């Protein structure tokens, strides 16, 4: 159970250069809109033909520019769930689900459809039309329809983007359960950090048509190694660096020198830390502490965002550091500021060095 993709495709000024190898796992492709993540899925499904390269699914060549192979979508046996679910409006739930099942007698078909109706909790809805279903129900029908034909790979294109935010939360568990019934390679495309973190075993970072890094989801979120990875997993504080010596670097935007335990490799270009990883006190604890002042206080419903300006910073807007605290913590820090100076520090473990 695996898929190997190595393709290029030029579309106007956009250049897709997708390289991936996915085993029997749930891979999330995280990227902004227009980064080429949906396009990659469409290339695998046979909707878009790449210019060059290879797509091999379980030893079956779906596409190969060298060998001049380009299977039609019907022969690829992939399962692609569209962003808008693409349910056939003129067919009932049962008809939608049974449509993709081939090479089966009508009794076998009925049984398969029935088992998926049960599995996805759609028993009472079998004779309804898609327009008579809620968004979450439509989503389950779409997934059932694809899984009923036992595809060799399951691809989900932003499965939650068509749903309201409050609805998303309530159906996530059901969706996750349904998804776990599939035993094979899953590619889950999304721009949502939350979804990828919740649903996927591993994560690939995609930006501007390229895949920058791929690792287990935990690793990617704990310690992205590329600038794109840091940005897409939600790092707000990123600064270019200058390497001072083997173990110390200067963050250029902030004018702060950081001491690093390990040797800093030459390909490291940026430093970053998350908005929750900075601790503030009015003591200069160690040599990794740096003086700062509060620039702006922003209230969000359950947190307070502090925009901090390091003492050595030169440009107020581009050199700020953004931190997120609970309301209480933030009040403590704001009170500390009045009697004296503030010092921030970041644990060495939480410092991300980026290529």
């Amino acid at each position, binding site marked *: 159970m695996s898929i190997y993709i190595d393709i290029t495709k030029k579309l106007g000024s956009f250049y897709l250069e997708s390289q991936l190898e996915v085993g029997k796992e749930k891979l999330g492709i995280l990227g902004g809109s227009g980064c080429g993540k949906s396009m990659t899925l469409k290339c695998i*499904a*046979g*909707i878009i033909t790449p210019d060059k390269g290879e797509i091999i699914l379980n030893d079956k060549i779906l596409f190969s520019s060298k060998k001049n192979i380009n299977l*039609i*979508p*019907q022969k*690829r*046996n*992939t*399962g*692609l769930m*569209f*962003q*808008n*679910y*693409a*349910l*056939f*409006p*003129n067919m009932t739930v049962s008809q939608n689900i049974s*449509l*993709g099942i*081939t090479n089966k007698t009508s009794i076998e078909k009925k049984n398969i459809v029935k088992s998926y109706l049960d599995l996805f909790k759609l028993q009472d809805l079998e004779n309804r*039309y*898609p*327009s*008579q279903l809620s968004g979450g129900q*439509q989503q389950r029908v779409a997934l059932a*329809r*694809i899984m009923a*034909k036992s595809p060799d790979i399951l691809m989900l294109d932003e499965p939650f983007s*068509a749903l309201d935010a409050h609805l998303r939360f309530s159906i996530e568990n059901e969706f996750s359960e349904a998804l776990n019934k599939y035993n094979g390679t899953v590619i889950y495309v999304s721009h949502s950090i939350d979804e990828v973190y919740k649903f996927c075993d591993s994560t690939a970072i995609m930006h501007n048509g390229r895949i920058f890094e791929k690792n287990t989801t935990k690793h990617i979120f704990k310690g992205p190694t590329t600038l794109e990875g840091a940005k897409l997993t939600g790092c707000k504080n990123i600064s270019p660096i200058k390497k001072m010596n083997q173990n110390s670097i200067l963050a250029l935007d902030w004018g702060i020198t950081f001491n690093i335990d390990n040797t800093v490799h030459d390909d490291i270009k940026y430093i970053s830390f998350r908005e929750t990883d900075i601790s503030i006190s009015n003591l200069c604890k160690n040599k990794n502490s740096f003086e700062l002042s509060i620039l702006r206080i922003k209230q969000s419903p359950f947190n307070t965002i502090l925009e901090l300006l390091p003492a050595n910073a030169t440009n107020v807007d581009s050199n700020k550091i953004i931190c997120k605290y609970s309301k209480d913590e933030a009040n403590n820090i704001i009170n500390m500021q009045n009697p004296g100076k503030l010092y921030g520090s970041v644990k060495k473990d939480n410092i991300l060095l980026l290529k």
Partner: protein
Amino acid sequence: MSIDFSPLIISIKTSLVAVFFTFILGIVAARTLMNVNSKVQWILDVIFTFPLVLPPTVVGFILLVIFGKNSAIGSFLSKIGMSIIFTWQATVLAAIIVSFPLMYRAAKGAFEQIDTNLIWAARTLGLSEFKIFIKIMIPLALPGIISGAILAFARALGEFGATLMIAGNIPKVTQTIPLAIYFANAAGKTKEAGFWTLIIIVISLIVLGIMNYWSVKDKKIMRGGDAK
């Protein structure tokens, strides 16, 4: 005033037979167009729409040139003992040609409105192109196709110019209602012309009624069919 009802029968028969062919040809033409590249598409679209913008007499004249005794097709047909010009078949031919663009454009519009994701979803589910056409495209485009067919019927019923050119005005053979009106009026039989006019108005009202019924149904299907 004794009325000969043959124009009514000829008109209805001609329109129905013509629409039968137009219906199939229009749908096939619209579907075929989706499979070819955009240049060919443009050229075919112009050709398929041409009879709509050309004056009917011009269509009639072109048909005369194509099917006349001196043309290749015409002489071939006369060799095998067939003749089109000045027969009832000619009224059907004229009606097909002038009503075809309406059917074709309606079907094309209806197909184009289908969410392409549905077609691609069907392909990835493994459905053959033929099955997709029959099970998804036709049902989803049906309201548009039906109203196209009704319009085509109305157009076929009203055809005058091309019919006169290639079928002539032969009573009980090629004399349709529009021809009957023209020649009755020209002969000073105002009452007869008025009678046929009334008949045409009644038929047109019925056609419009059916069209409106379908467009309401169309909206219902679209509302029921919104999968987003």
